[in-house]
């Protein structure tokens, strides 16, 4: 028991980060993590032996997030994250500001692209793991990554005037 709890615990901060990037709301993110841990405890014996724990936990969290949306119809998402809204985050003021900016950038992507980029680029999951977590084929994952990155390039690398000119 203690071993399995420690194993889950070593993934909690990563789950919390993923949840925060999904919900952009500290309280909802924390509830999501709590629900994920509870479900992992009660379904522990159903894990396929030999499979790494982290992708399994991320799958649970992702499914809870999706079904939570469906159940409560709370499609409303916080439009942005202000630095104070993040709650107690350790780190320097610059670090906290950069965090808020990165979350804001990600918030401008459609959810499916955001999740793909979080799983692959931030959490370092392989394509095989990430597509399993999202329940999509690897090809779909790659096109979401590609579209998401294109959007991020536009947002980050192009000055606002250039973007304006392109729109007009």
């Amino acid at each position, binding site marked *: *028991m*203690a071993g399995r*709890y*420690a194993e*889950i*615990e070593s993934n*909690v*901060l*990563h789950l*919390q*980060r993923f949840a*925060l*990037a999904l919900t952009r709301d500290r309280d909802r993110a*924390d509830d999501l*993590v*709590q629900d994920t*841990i*509870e479900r992992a*405890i*009660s*379904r*522990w*014996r*159903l894990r396929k032996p030999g499979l790494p724990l982290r992708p399994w936990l991320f799958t649970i969290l992702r499914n809870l997030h999706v079904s939570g949306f469906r159940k409560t119809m709370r499609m409303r998402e916080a439009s942005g994250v202000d630095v104070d809204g993040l709650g107690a*985050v*350790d*780190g320097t003021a610059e*670090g*906290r500001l*950069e*965090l808020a*900016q*990165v*979350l804001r950038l*990600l918030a401008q992507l459609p959810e499916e692209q955001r999740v793909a*980029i979080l799983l*692959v*680029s*931030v959490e370092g999951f*392989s*394509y095989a793991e990430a597509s399993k977590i999202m329940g999509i084929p*690897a*090809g779909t994952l*790659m*096109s979401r*990554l*590609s579209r998401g*990155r294109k959007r*991020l*390039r536009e947002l*980050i*690398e192009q000055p606002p005037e250039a973007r304006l000119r392109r729109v007009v």
Partner: protein
Amino acid sequence: MTRNNGPIGEDDLTAYVDGELSAERRALVEDWLEGHPEDRKRIEADIRIRDRLQGGLGILVDETLPDRFRVEEIATGLRARRFTQFSRLAAVFALVSVGVASGWIARGRVPVPMAVASNSDLALAAYQVYVPDKVRPVEITADASESLGVWLGNRIGLSVSVPDLSDSGLKLIGGRLLPGDDGIPAGQLMYEKADGSRVTLYFRAAKSENGSILFQETSGANTLAWQFGEMAYVLTGESDKDGMVELAMKVNASAS
């Protein structure tokens, strides 16, 4: 996802950034990028952005674990919550005497959820078929109670721990898989007392959140149906209601 021949395409550029190409394909992409400076710039931008995302979000995993997420405590809380729910119900349930309860149920005054009632019927039927069998009462014997739980759990889609009821003088014989209603699989564990009488525990994934506890007496055996966590249970045997509730508590304890 990493074709080794064919022209360099968007998938290659995406997979290149994520280190998902074979060494061979990766070398081809690198050669190709030499002649395509625009794409090279784009790849460099993607890598820069990835590093920025990792850096910006990195402080969230460098934190110390919030107290709220001590897993041991969450597990304890989960157990306590389920127990309180069940104990509260069991306490209310104990106030209703058996005779009165079954009378009321028969006259339809106590609403009996259909799912629970039908689980009891199926459990009782399985009890009546398999318990009298002296030669082969179970499909899998208790020798491997660990793998028995794993096997049944995989089939019914929930984690199953085989309760140890030896404190109550019940020795595990083994278990089997059964059809539940709607074709959903259920499990049956069989226990035996020193006097040869047997008790079965029938279980399946619950269909809905249903807190009711239901005790029924028939000429053959008594059943106690309840739900704990995501599992619906039915105990079948000759014990009275109090004996059944006590066993149910032990089943819950082993499940949490």
